[in-house]
């Protein structure tokens, strides 16, 4: 592990590890094209239609973390096409080129309102943030690190589910991460989940639903089985808000909906409430 503890503010100026590169982002709701710098100022809420635009992982961290406080961990891990699965190599190359990331998850440590926290954020632009060996390994290492350093963890989830291109090995990442979550929890430490659009399949059936507290962004799609699969297999008419954050709130699976402009404040407050967490009594 290279980073020992939170670096001093001055050691990590803005733009490193964050880039200030300008690029265009299309709102999937109204198709309006916006500059990234514009969206960073509006919490990635579309200025044209008010929709929540999906946020690249590092910009998400930038919106939540104290300025200059984030340090990335294990960024060099990369996926291997060990099953020689059709088109996987190509998909990986494209995802790497278009996002500048090496994998679908960014992990590290940050401060929010001055308080330290380990953080992982999935990036839906990278093969729908599906959960393969690298995602599983990085999240597991983050929980192990947080357990050793007695840090809380914030997980910002989105995912299409397990990464089928890695076969059964990807399914096992769900168990692997859950083991690390369990050890972190047994150490009396806080794990908070922020569910974002879309969190589905294997991620919903593991780390996304294992938080001590679970927040969700308004309107986010969160579910286990795909809507189309359910419609096809059961022929059921599904309500319009089916598997939306509001639906989960109604059914008791989410603590509260957390609009983007309030996230930093609420997460900061939560960290403050848990900052003197003692080792749990045996």
């Amino acid at each position, binding site marked *: 592990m290279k980073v020992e503890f939170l670096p001093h503010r001055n050691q990590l100026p803005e733009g490193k590890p964050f880039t200030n590169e300008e690029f265009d982002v299309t709102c999937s709701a109204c198709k309006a094209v916006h500059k990234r710098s514009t969206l960073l100022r509006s919490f990635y809420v579309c200025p044209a239609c008010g929709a929540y635009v999906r946020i690249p992982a590092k910009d998400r961290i930038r919106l939540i973390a104290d300025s200059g406080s984030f340090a990335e961990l294990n960024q060099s891990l990369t996926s*291997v096409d060990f099953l020689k699965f059709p088109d996987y190599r190509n998909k990986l190359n494209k995802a790497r080129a278009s996002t500048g990331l090496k994998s679908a998850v960014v992990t590290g440590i940050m401060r929010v309102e001055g308080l330290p926290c380990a953080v992982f954020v999935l990036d839906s632009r990278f093969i729908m943030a599906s959960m393969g060996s690298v995602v599983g390994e990085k999240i597991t290492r983050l929980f192990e690190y947080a357990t050793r350093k007695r840090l809380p963890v914030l997980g910002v989830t989105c995912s299409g589910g397990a990464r089928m291109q890695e076969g059964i090995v990807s399914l096992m990442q769900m*168990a692997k991460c859950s*083991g690390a979550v369990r050890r972190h929890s047994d150490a009396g430490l806080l794990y908070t989940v922020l569910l974002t659009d879309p969190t589905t399949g294997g991620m919903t*059936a593991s780390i996304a639903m294992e938080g001590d507290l679970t927040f969700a962004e308004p309107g986010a799609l969160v579910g286990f089985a795909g809507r189309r699969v359910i419609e096809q297999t059961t022929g059921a008419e599904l309500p319009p808000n089916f598997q939306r954050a509001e639906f989960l709130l109604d059914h008791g699976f989410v603590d509260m909906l957390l609009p983007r402009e309030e996230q930093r404040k609420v997460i900061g407050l939560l960290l403050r409430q848990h900052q003197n967490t003692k080792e749990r009594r045996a």
Partner: protein
Amino acid sequence: MTKERETDTKTTDTVAQNPLSAYERMKLVRSQNRPKGSDFVERLFTDRIQCCGDRRFAEDPAILAGIGYLGDRPVTYIAIDKGKDLADRMQKHFGCPMPEGYRKALRHMKLAEKFGRPVIALIDTLGAYCGADGEERGQGQAIAENLVEMMGLRTPVISVVIGEGGSGGALALGVADRVYMLENAVYSVITPDGCASIIWKDAGRVHDAADCLHITAEDMVRFGVAEGIIKEDFDRFDSMCMDLKKLLLRDIDALSSQSTTRLLKNRYNRFRRIGIFEEPQEQ
């Protein structure tokens, strides 16, 4: 640095090279006349008390759970049952458990922990139930809770995939100290049918998808997902189950002799080392 785990193949040497393709095995384990969870339960466990309900919402008949004897040892058994005739199969939604089923299973695992009994889980499912009612009651949350709870369960757990190991719906009973595959059993992250429609937009290419996904018992041993392969002999099903019983008892003895700390550490590491990736050293 590519990690691939060396595995214990103790039981595999008794199994001759399996000539069936992944697809053929998938068809075989889905066939109706193959023994189901209830058939194994009847032969493996004696003096059973089978129990209903998750104490939260409902009873899910797709999962059988109770207390019985494995030889002279009381154990907790949990088995996914696809059912026999059409009415039975429909009642059990073809062996796709509801959230209630997973919560019932967890309830019995916690009881096993309380009373120091080992847990034997028999897995045979296409996957967790997919439906609006399952989603309303937190299918994902139910599976996730089992993963976390099984990781910390302070009693030995052995899982056997007796037919289909369908994704998260199978893993929810598969976080174990030892996992065995029946000779023709398959274990997959997604159904080959679903995979074929995603990659080729052609559900007809299931055969190719089954190959691509690497779902056979041999694959599971290779990736460190299973410890061994159990020979199938359904013409002599009773004696096959006697052999399986002996294997399970031998494992329970070995696992019971470990301290709880050691048991949980080994279980953690069993999953911790699964994963294949590269980690270039930074300059």
